[in-house]
């Protein structure tokens, strides 16, 4: 029986092997649009796969999406799978997706922290960090969203390896972080980075490591306002928005601050939904609704990037 991306159960949580297998099926089903590239290996030598959505051309501007850098936030990886399928399905059908992909590429890393994710399936469902060993400590792992070279080691991150927000021994110490950094730097034309987390129902933008507004604060604020409004229009889920530092807390070493400081103007991070009762244990029945409502927000950002070249 030929494998098909159509028979995949998007309304269920899946292991890393199932997701990686499904990525191959998606590529088989859309060979002219989707390809799978490996951007590196994790600490435990798992491949770091990225789906590339491209209609051709060379060195086109691009959007980077990643889900699940905090491994226990399962709704994000599940949303990543759904979103990948949606992008593939909508090309040639939806005018916005078609316009985006006719001019830009989209890169999507669904399992951004594969070691942590595998660990959540085998040993500790509530594992957040990477799985790297910390010299001189009994505690394992680094918070990969405090490991970037942007206000590294600052407020909201911890120097204690036993903390959930341990920033690591040095910036980009984590192979999973370094691989993304190398990829974005080498690519050179990534115009937007959207890093997806859960759960707080927020759309955030730089800065996290300082309270001063980013130079593009007003534009990002307006875009975020539109995106959360379109998201809320689907099921009424209310999101807040603003800079990381002013909306939640000061946090040094985050993905989107690094991206912004390295020339990626449209850098956002999403905190997906929770009903207020389940946290990271959101029932699988909420995967499709969560992904569905997130889609218009993602589309808003990507369309804005397309319409505002820089």
């Amino acid at each position, binding site marked *: 029986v030929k494998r098909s991306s159509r028979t995949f*159960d998007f309304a*269920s*949580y899946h292991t890393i092997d199932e997701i990686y297998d499904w990525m191959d099926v998606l590529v088989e089903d859309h060979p002219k649009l989707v390809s799978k590239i490996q951007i590196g290996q994790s600490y435990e030598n798992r491949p770091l796969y990225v789906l590339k959505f491209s209609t051709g051309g060379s060195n086109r501007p691009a959007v980077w999406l990643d889900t699940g850098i905090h491994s226990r936030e399962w709704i994000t990886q599940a949303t990543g799978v759904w979103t990948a399928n949606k992008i593939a399905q909508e090309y040639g059908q939806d005018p916005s997706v078609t316009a985006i992909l006719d001019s830009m590429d989209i890169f999507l890393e669904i399992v951004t922290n594969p070691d942590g994710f595998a660990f959540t399936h085998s040993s*500790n*469902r*509530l594992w957040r960090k990477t799985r790297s060993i910390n010299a001189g400590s009994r505690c394992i792992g680094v918070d990969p969203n405090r490991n970037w070279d942007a206000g590294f080691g600052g407020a909201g991150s911890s120097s204690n390896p036993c903390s959930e927000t341990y920033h690591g021994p040095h910036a980009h110490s984590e192979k999973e972080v370094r691989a993304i950094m190398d990829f974005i730097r080498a690519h050179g034309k990534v115009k937007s980075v959207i890093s997806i987390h859960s759960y*707080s129902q927020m759309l955030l933008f730089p800065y996290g490591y300082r309270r001063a507004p980013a130079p593009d604060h007003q534009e990002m604020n307006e875009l975020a306002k539109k995106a959360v409004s379109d998201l809320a229009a689907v099921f009424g889920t209310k999101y807040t928005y603003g800079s990381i530092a002013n909306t*939640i807390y000061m946090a040094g070493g985050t993905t989107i601050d690094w991206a912004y400081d390295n020339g990626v103007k449209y850098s956002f991070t999403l905190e997906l939904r929770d009903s207020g009762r389940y*946290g990271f244990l959101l029932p699988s029945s909420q995967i499709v609704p969560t992904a569905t409502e997130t889609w218009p927000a993602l589309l808003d950002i990507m369309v804005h990037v397309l319409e505002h070249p820089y």
Partner: protein
Amino acid sequence: EQLFVGDQVLRVTARNEEQIALLRVLGEQEELQVDFWRHPNIPGHPVDLRVPFPNLQGVKKLLDFRNFSYSIMIEDVQELLDEEKESMRRSRR
């Protein structure tokens, strides 16, 4: 495999900066093994913390003593995890 039998997730609302600071201190006490699911940041915003079963009484006492307002968001984390596992098993079948 790590089990979370009897662990609860408490949703705490800090009224002011002082209570935020107290919650942070709580998180730093290694022996309590509190795991913040939502970190303390702005007064009035919910803070979610998973507390291992053996430390529940101690943490709740502390919260009561300091006049925190809180509710139990998840009664038993392991029960939810078991449901999640069962749901995945059914889906796979």
